[in-house]
């Protein structure tokens, strides 16, 4: 699951000509550590929903990789 999330995040970074990240950490902040803008986050929700059928922003904002993983594990 973490790997799939890594692929999605790297796809978004690559489209903006940003270098890919090798690994995700639970405490990584989506904005400050992974450099995602709100437009990127919107894209992330769509791609995660395509993959896992879960809307990660359904009940409010998530800020870290760990929070996303927790939603996906439910």
């Amino acid at each position, binding site marked *: 699951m973490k790997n799939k999330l890594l692929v999605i995040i790297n*796809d978004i970074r*690559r*489209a*903006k*000509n940003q270098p890919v990240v090798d690994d995700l950490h639970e405490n990584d902040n989506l904005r400050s550590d992974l450099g995602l*803008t*709100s*437009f990127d*986050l*919107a*894209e992330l*929700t*769509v791609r995660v929903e395509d993959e896992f059928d879960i*809307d990660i*922003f*359904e009940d409010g904002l998530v800020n870290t990789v760990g929070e996303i993983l927790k939603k996906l594990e439910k």
Partner: protein
Amino acid sequence: MIDGGKSYSYSALLQSINADDYFPLLKTTDLFSYFSNLVKALANNRSLTLLDSDLNQAELKGMDENLVNAKEKVSTIDFSSMVDVIDAVKNSNSRVTIFTSGTTGQPKKISHDVQTLTRSVRQGGKYADHIWGYAYNPTHMAGIQVFFQAFMNKNVIVNVFNRSRHEIYEMVDKYSITHLSATPTFYRLLLPMEKTCTSVQRVTLGGEKSDEHLYQAIRAIFPSAKINNVYASTEAGSLFASKGDCFQLPAANRDKFKIMDGELLIHRSLLGCSNSLALDGDFYHSGDLIEWVNQQEGLFRFKGRKNELINVGGYKINPEEVETMLNSIEGIRQSVVYGKANSVIGNILCADILLEQTVKMTELDIRQLLNGKLQDYKIPRRIRFVESISVTRTGKLKRT
């Protein structure tokens, strides 16, 4: 007139006009019966409503369905020649009711007098030999304008609306079409170029935003043609002459136009009659977004439609701006940009892309190319590659 392999002469038209009945509310796919009914009504000072052949029941709301395609007797004037008919149409006191295309909700009803519909028609010797490729829906403003221009000069009309690319090239050649008037979408669908068409002398674009990339393609397909633009609306008819890719407000009645928040406002005196047009004082909000090229000379460029702006995270995005950028990428034939509802930012920007036949491109390639050319929020976040792009009833791009 040539339509679907059949041809009709102006004397056949005269004969049909001198027959007894007409249809105040005709719904037909047959272009000749449609036009002969229109001319017959106008020449006899009868009013009529123009209906799309595919108009459905919901869109007909408020109209008595039993009246659709019901004949009405007219004791017709016996015309001895087309010249008399054309004169009668010019001086007709009929009113013609048409509908907006209704891409954003219920179609609106607008009624015009014949003089408004024909005000941009030019007649005379030098217009006599024109052969028109008819590329518009005949029940909407642009199609009506082209019809009157051709009819009042007794020109040949070749119906090319809704034909495939290959058929259009064939027909232009076979009938030596000299004049084409169509939406930018129509011309984009002629790409990739099959061959050059030297018979065409004039290419007119209207109804949507066009761009330099498209002009280049048109110049290649129609090397002998002059290119111009028209601005016409269902509400007001033909309004502006073009100057290159710009339009100019006519000096004589410049006070009949206002620009508010980039939107063009038109004075009520230039409009047809309708109950469904909301006026702001004496002005009507056209919904067309424009930018000044030279405000003093009244020179402006068409930017897009206000109701098509997509709200992405509080930014209003003009899909036509993004499409223009996409279409300028080598290998992309055509694109459609639209919004998809999203819980984070309201809408997420999406694009459907039609590639040139032999081109291989990925979503990543396109987004990397756009990076730095468009601001982050204007870059589509979902790109689908499609085999075909749909158009509306009036031949414009359909944004889903």
